[in-house]
């Protein structure tokens, strides 16, 4: 099985971090994987995206052009990539920031008001992980049991508070569904 995942949003929303977390979780599961960031001017602000491929087979092209899973964290990202999602694919949307519905009817869509939830629950700035919680809940792209170990790889041990913060945000995402 191969999952092509495309994460897209504004620079600063944690697009690359979300991808990195998924990549580490896949590494812990001994899967084949690739993580490819956009590294253009967008990493200095503006739209930004990240391709993550998790597979049982060696990964061919690391560039996700036809995602099985699209995580759209802002409106420009949905506008740009909605059509690219494979039929039967999944789209996860931060519905606090995206002010429209998905037009296609051949994909499964999850609307999670993650930015509003993050502010409401005191998790400012990690709407990305709340949205990711929803992805993990529905897509089984990574195993829940690997989350603590994967988080330890991306959040330095010096920042125990941030570690807990991120784990709680993912759990909030499950809860919201």
């Amino acid at each position, binding site marked *: 099985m191969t999952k092509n995942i495309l994460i897209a949003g504004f620079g600063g929303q944690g697009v690359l971090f979300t991808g*990195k977390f998924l*990549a*580490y979780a896949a*590494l812990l599961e001994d899967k*084949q*994987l*690739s*993580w*490819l*960031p956009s*590294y*253009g001017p967008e990493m200095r602000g503006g739209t930004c995206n990240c391709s993550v491929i998790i597979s049982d087979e060696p*990964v*061919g*092209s*690391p*560039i996700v*052009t036809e995602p099985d899973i699209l995580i759209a964290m802002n409106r420009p990202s949905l506008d740009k990539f909605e059509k690219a999602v494979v039929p039967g694919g999944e789209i996860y949307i931060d519905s606090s920031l995206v002010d429209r519905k998905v037009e296609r009817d051949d994909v499964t869509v999850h609307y999670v008001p993650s930015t509003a939830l993050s502010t409401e629950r005191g998790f400012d700035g990690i709407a990305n992980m709340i949205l990711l919680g929803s992805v993990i809940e529905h897509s089984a792209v990574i195993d829940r049991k690997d989350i603590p170990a994967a988080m330890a*790889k991306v959040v330095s041990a010096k920042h125990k508070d941030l570690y807990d913060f991120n784990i709680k945000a993912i759990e909030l995402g499950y809860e919201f569904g």
Partner: protein
Amino acid sequence: MSEKVLMKGNEAIAEAAISCGCRHYFGYPITPQTEIAAYMAKRMPKIGGTFLQAESEIAAINMVIGAASAGVRVMTSSSSPGVSLKSEGISYMAGCDLPALIVNVQRGGPGLGGIQPSQSDYFQATRGGGHGDYHLLVLAPASVQEMAAMTVRAFDLADKYRMPCMLLADGTMGQMMEPVELGESTGGTVDKPWALTGTGMSRKHNIINSLSLTPDELERWNVDRYARYAKVERDEVLYEEYLCDDAEIVVVGFGIAARVAKNAVNAARAEGIKAGMFRPITLWPFPKKAMFERAKTARAFISVELSMGQMIEDIELAVRCTRPVTLCSRVGGMIPSPAEVKKSIEDAHAKLDGRN
């Protein structure tokens, strides 16, 4: 076997260089390879090595000449415009028979170009780049694991043949993360009796120089160097073939283009087209014998490149125009999609009908 870790291609190059004994890095920052310098800046001071950000690419390559002359493992890295600046120094290194690693994480050109991935420095890398008769040994990795492995190999080959080696990657290869298993540290202890290490008043002094005003001497230097190149061409060719045995259409690509081509080959196979992929790993020496052999069974070749068509000339030379070779390429930082490559496979396949 060590543990698998996730690393960017650029970081894997830096760590692999350290693992095989490189303790000297001279460079100047440029996207998309800056992580190599950043990694070296962090690590070198901790292991007694030297990291130096020079005032320019030209200064950096001349520092590499100095360190290589002293017999130590040394490297520099840059991206396309920076490698152009280094080309004079690289020619001097070839003329002085100095081993070193030069990494080019290519971006779109010409001129300042852009910062997105490209393979348009193929001619520059494989034809020398600077002035005079010389070659670099050019390795083209297609995964983060290979970025590490080819770095070690490049240092070994550079020392073995006393020539500068180039790792030719691109922005995608440099920026992507994949699991990588780093080998045990090898230390890189190669005897270099020619190096400028001080005579200790016990031997004749060594001379490292590319200048000779005596034509017959300079001719001999060139001829001797090309005898060494002939050995490289005979013994150091590397390539990978994927599903080529029964392939009618063979897609040729290196680095990121090969990764895309592999997807396209699989997609074409799923539709019953017998496609395969041929991936040169050494770009110089180019795997021309193997490709000529493959042309006896394959009926058409496609060159997939992130350039306006540079490697295609080597393919045509290798197959000696016995088979049609077409180009599938994007430039300027664009990358051909698997669908675009598949389309070119279908086009080549359609033209086969009615032809032997």
